[in-house]
C-alpha cells in the first residue's frame, strides 16, 4: 500500500505539472503570445550571431540599453520562446513544471475515479482507488497552497522577478534611456552630467500624481526619472532607441523597453526577434498593441514600479546617470 501511495504521489505531481501547462498555454494565447510559434535552426543561429555581434558592438552598451547577451537557448521549453537570460529560462522551466503538475493531477483523478467505478464492490480495489484520488487531490492542494503562500508573502516570488541574475545586468539597463551615448555601462548613477534632475510639474508623471501610486514616498525620484526619460509625455516614443528595422522600442513615460519587457498583459518581447537595436519586429500587430499599452500611463507606471522595485532602485534607467539617485 505504501509503495502504491508513493507511485500515486508521483503520478499526481506529473499531473499537476501538466494541468498548469495547459492553463499557462491558454493564458499565453489570451495575451497574444503564440506558444507554439516555432523558430527554425537557421533563425536560431542567426539570432545567436546577431546577439553575439550586438554584445561586441560598442554602441550597444553606450546607450544605456541592455547589451544583448550572447546566447539564445537552442532548445525551447515547450510553450515558451527563446530567451537569452537565465532568470527567464528558469521561469519558463518552473512554469512548465507547474503545467505538468496540473495535467498529471487531473489525469490521476480520472484514473482513480475509473478504478473506483471498476472496483465492483471489491473493497481492496475501492481502497486503492480512494488512495489514488486522495493522493492526487492532496498533492494538488499542496501545490496550490505553496503557490498561494508565495503569492501572499511576496507576489514577486511567483512572478520570478530575478533581474539581478540577468546576464550582463551589472553593466546594462533593461529600460532604455538612450541617445547621445555616454557609457551605458554601470548606470550606478552618481551624476556624471549636469546634476540632479527635477520632477515633472504636470501630467501623469507629476510628483503629486506618482505619490498615489506604488512609488509612494519615492515619487520625487520617480517623477525626475520620468522627466529625464520622456519629458513626462505619455505618448513619447524614443527617437534614438530604434530597432534594426526602424521601430521605436522604448515607449511611454518611463521609456519601457518593449524588446525586453512585457506590459499590460502583453508578451511584447515575442513581437521581436532579438533585442534592443538588433531587434526586428516579427509581429507588427502585437508590436502596435504593445506601443499602445506602454503609452497608457497606468500601465507604464505599474511596469516602472515593477522594474524599479517600487522606487527602491533606479539603476535600470540610463537617465539615472544624470539624476544620480
Amino acid at each position: 500500500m505504501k509503495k502504491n501511495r508513493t507511485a500515486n504521489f508521483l503520478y499526481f505531481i506529473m499531473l499537476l505539472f501538466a494541468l498548469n501547462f495547459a492553463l499557462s498555454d491558454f493564458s499565453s494565447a489570451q495575451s497574444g503570445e503564440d506558444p507554439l510559434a516555432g523558430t527554425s535552426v537557421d533563425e536560431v543561429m542567426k539570432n545567436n550571431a546577431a546577439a553575439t555581434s550586438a554584445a561586441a558592438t560598442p554602441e550597444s552598451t553606450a546607450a544605456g540599453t541592455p547589451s544583448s547577451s550572447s546566447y539564445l537557448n537552442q532548445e525551447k521549453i515547450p510553450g515558451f520562446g527563446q530567451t537569452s537570460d537565465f532568470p527567464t529560462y528558469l521561469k519558463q522551466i518552473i512554469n512548465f513544471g507547474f503545467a505538468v503538475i496540473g495535467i498529471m493531477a487531473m489525469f490521476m483523478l480520472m484514473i482513480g475515479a475509473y478504478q473506483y467505478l471498476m472496483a465492483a464492490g471489491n473493497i481492496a480495489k475501492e481502497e486503492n482507488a480512494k488512495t489514488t484520488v486522495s493522493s492526487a487531490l492532496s498533492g494538488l492542494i499542496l501545490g496550490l497552497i505553496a503557490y498561494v503562500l508565495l503569492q501572499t508573502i511576496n507576489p514577486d516570488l511567483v512572478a520570478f522577478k530575478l533581474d539581478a541574475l540577468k546576464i550582463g545586468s551589472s553593466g546594462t539597463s533593461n529600460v532604455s534611456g538612450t541617445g547621445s551615448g555616454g557609457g551605458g555601462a554601470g548606470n550606478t548613477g552618481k551624476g556624471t552630467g549636469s546634476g540632479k534632475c527635477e520632477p515633472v510639474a504636470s501630467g501623469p508623471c507629476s510628483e503629486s500624481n506618482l505619490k498615489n501610486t506604488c512609488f509612494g514616498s519615492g515619487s520625487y525620484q520617480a517623477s525626475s526619472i520620468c522627466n529625464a526619460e520622456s519629458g513626462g509625455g505619455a505618448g513619447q516614443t524614443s527617437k534614438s532607441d530604434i530597432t534594426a528595422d526602424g521601430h521605436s522600442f522604448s515607449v511611454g513615460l518611463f521609456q519601457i523597453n518593449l524588446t525586453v519587457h512585457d506590459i499590460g498583459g502583453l508578451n511584447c518581447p515575442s513581437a521581436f526577434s532579438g533585442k534592443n537595436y538588433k531587434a526586428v519586429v516579427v509581429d507588427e500587430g502585437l508590436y502596435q498593441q504593445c506601443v499602445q499599452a506602454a503609452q497608457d500611463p497606468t500601465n507604464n507606471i505599474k511596469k516602472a514600479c515593477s522594474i524599479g522595485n517600487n522606487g527602491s532602485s533606479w539603476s535600470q534607467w540610463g537617465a539615472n546617470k544624470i539624476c544620480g539617485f
Partner: protein
Amino acid sequence: MKKTIYFAVLLLIIIVASVIYTAVTGKPSKNSRNENPVAEPENNQTQSDKIDINTGKGIVAVNNIQKNPVEKIAFDGSVVFAKSDNYAMSYYPPDQGFIVTIENPNLDLARSQAEDEFIKLLGVDKEQACLLKVTLNVPFGVSEKAAGQNYGLSFCPNGKPFPQN
C-alpha cells in the same frame, strides 16, 4: 455513498481548476497601492471652442486643443495637440498643465519653433502663456546634458536657458 464521493470529486475538480485558472491568468499585484494611479479625465469641456485654464492668478481662456488632438492617450485624457520632428506638446486635463517636449538635438531652434507654435495653437499672448503651467523639457535620448530639467518658456520669468555645450 458512491454518489456522494462522485459528486465530491467532481466538485473538487471544478474548484481546483477554477483556483488554478485564477492563479495562472494572474490577479492584480498587491504591491500596487492604487489600481488606477492616473486621475480621471475631465470631459466636460471637450466640445467647446475655448477652455478655461485656472492659473491661480486668474482664468486664461485658450483654444480648445482637446477638440482635434493629434493623438489622445487612453484613460487619463492626455491629448497630444502638436507634434513634429522638433517637438511634441501635450495637455493634461486633470491638472490643466501643458508639457512641451523638445525632440531635436538642436535645442534652441526646436524650442523657438515650439514656443511660437504653442502660442499660436492656444491663441494666447506671451503674457497669458506665462501664467499657464508649462513644463518644457528634453528627454535623455535627445540630449543627455539637458535632460531632467524643467526649462519653462524662454520668454517667461521662470524660463531657463539650455546648458551650453
